């Protein structure tokens, strides 16, 4: 088993009587930009929730770096290097951009709980070092000028960048992006594509859901298409575009994103 792969095997998730994800298997290899696509309601976000432990799946297995993570709590999974963003942006709205990104440094910080009560020289050093990383990250995402702004007062496009910066501050091995281009204009989308490449160049594996097919076909290296929770196709972007089942699924659902 290759070491840093994410392997889903026969994953099934039910909500009451509804089967949201049905016997799904796929493998994301280290260093890939991997796409998960499908019509609305196909169960893509549910797959992400299963991987990140927000709604653990009942059956199947989720292996990460050779370890079973299916039933681990979210924060443990993050500690193992898997970080996600959300389709509906979930930032800490009343707080500043820098504080939001600082939240990503939580698990990297060496402070103990009792440093919340009494500081030590080493906790102070740790604090400074982490702020340093935050400002590097702000620089990387071109957010420095907004450092002190309250997040909820910023435009949507910038909030998306903040959310990615926050995820990157965790220094993940696998970054999961849930519709990163939703609500972005063309310019912003172009910047996003460049950013995704720059992240990949740092050696980080990327798994993304996206409705913007231009973006998907441009950036991803390998794709899995699901509909009604089951896989209907997988392959590289070229193969997927030709696949009749995929065309049927999208046309049949009259999804105008395609």
């Amino acid at each position: 088993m290759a070491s840093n792969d994410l392997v889903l095997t026969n994953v099934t998730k039910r909500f009451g009587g509804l089967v949201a994800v049905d016997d799904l298997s796929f493998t994301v290899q280290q260093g890939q930009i991997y796409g998960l696509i499908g019509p609305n309601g196909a169960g893509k976000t549910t797959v992400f929730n299963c991987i990140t432990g927000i709604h653990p799946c009942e059956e199947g297995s989720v292996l990460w770096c050779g370890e079973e993570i299916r039933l681990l709590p979210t924060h443990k999974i993050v500690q193992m290097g898997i970080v996600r963003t959300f389709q509906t942006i979930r930032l800490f709205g009343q707080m500043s951009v820098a504080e939001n990104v600082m939240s990503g440094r939580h698990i990297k910080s060496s402070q103990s709980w009792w440093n919340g009560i009494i500081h030590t020289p080493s906790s102070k050093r740790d604090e400074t070092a982490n702020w340093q990383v935050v400002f590097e990250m702000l620089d990387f995402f071109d957010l420095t000028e907004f450092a002190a702004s309250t997040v909820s007062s910023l435009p949507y496009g910038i909030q998306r960048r903040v959310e990615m910066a926050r995820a990157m501050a965790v220094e993940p091995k696998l970054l999961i992006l849930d519709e990163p281009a939703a609500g972005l204009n063309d310019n912003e989308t172009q910047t996003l594509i460049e950013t995704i490449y720059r992240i990949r160049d740092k050696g980080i594996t990327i798994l993304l859901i996206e409705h913007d097919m231009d973006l998907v076909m441009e950036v991803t290296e390998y794709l899995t298409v699901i509909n009604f929770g089951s896989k209907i196709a997988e392959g590289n972007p070229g193969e997927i575009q030709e696949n009749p089942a995929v065309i049927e699924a999208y046309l049949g659902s009259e999804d105008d994103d395609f």
Partner: protein
Amino acid sequence: MDTFLQQLVNGLTIGSMFALIALGYTMVYGVMKLINFAHGDLVAGSAFVGLFVFSQLLGGEVSLPVVIGVFLLTIVAISLLGFTVERLAYRPLRTAPRLSAVVSALGASMVIQNGIMLLWGPQMQIFPELIPSVIWEVGGVVISLMQVLIMALSTLLMVGLYFFVEKTKIGTAIRASAIDQDAARLMGINVNNIIVTIFLIGSSLGAVGGLFIGLYYRGITFNMGWQYGLYAFVAAIIGGIGNIPGAMLGGLLLGLFKAFIAGYVSSTWADAFTFILLIVILIVRPTGILGERVAEKV
């Protein structure tokens, strides 16, 4: 066995009162997601208004029309008060953080409680004996006319409310607003009117509860609203707050708990056991007995 049945009767009587009052909490919570802390004080206010209506407006002579008159006038007065509280203390805060509405509710509670004290004084007032104190003994169990009335009238009101909410158009609108206010608004429901409606209904039920307290216990004090409010609120939580049958169930259960705990376990620890039971129920069922578990949408 006699003791058991007697405790059952005791528990159901006080439980019916809790349930009536709990409905006011739960209906408001269902639609507005707000704990109406002033509700208990409306209940207390009702007993005082009833006293005033009887002795000042209707002449102080007991007769059936007068008793009915006391009930009707008090219900009207208290539902108007409930309406005023909503307008003044809650409506301006509908979009504010939830905790500010909680504190505003506490403020409203303080206003009503101290308002009663200013009008009627801090001393205990004696509620008139409007219902003759008739008691029957059935196989060792003593039951009074007042208890029968409380249980019967509460049941009637609760069944009526249940059908109102389930079967009528307004009831459907109430349920729709409880699930999603924005969607309800899009479907052409005037949510403001719905909120006014639930305040009127909730306060009316509370008013009946308050009159029962006055009739049953006789001694009424300006600050008694707190304890009835707290227990009714606990009843609503046990049943699953926001859930109408839940409030009824919670009220009756709480009444029975209190009776059996004070009776069989220990009167000196009655309150502690009641709350320990509540805590255990919530640990096992975090959203109450009939409350729905909501998975957060991500």
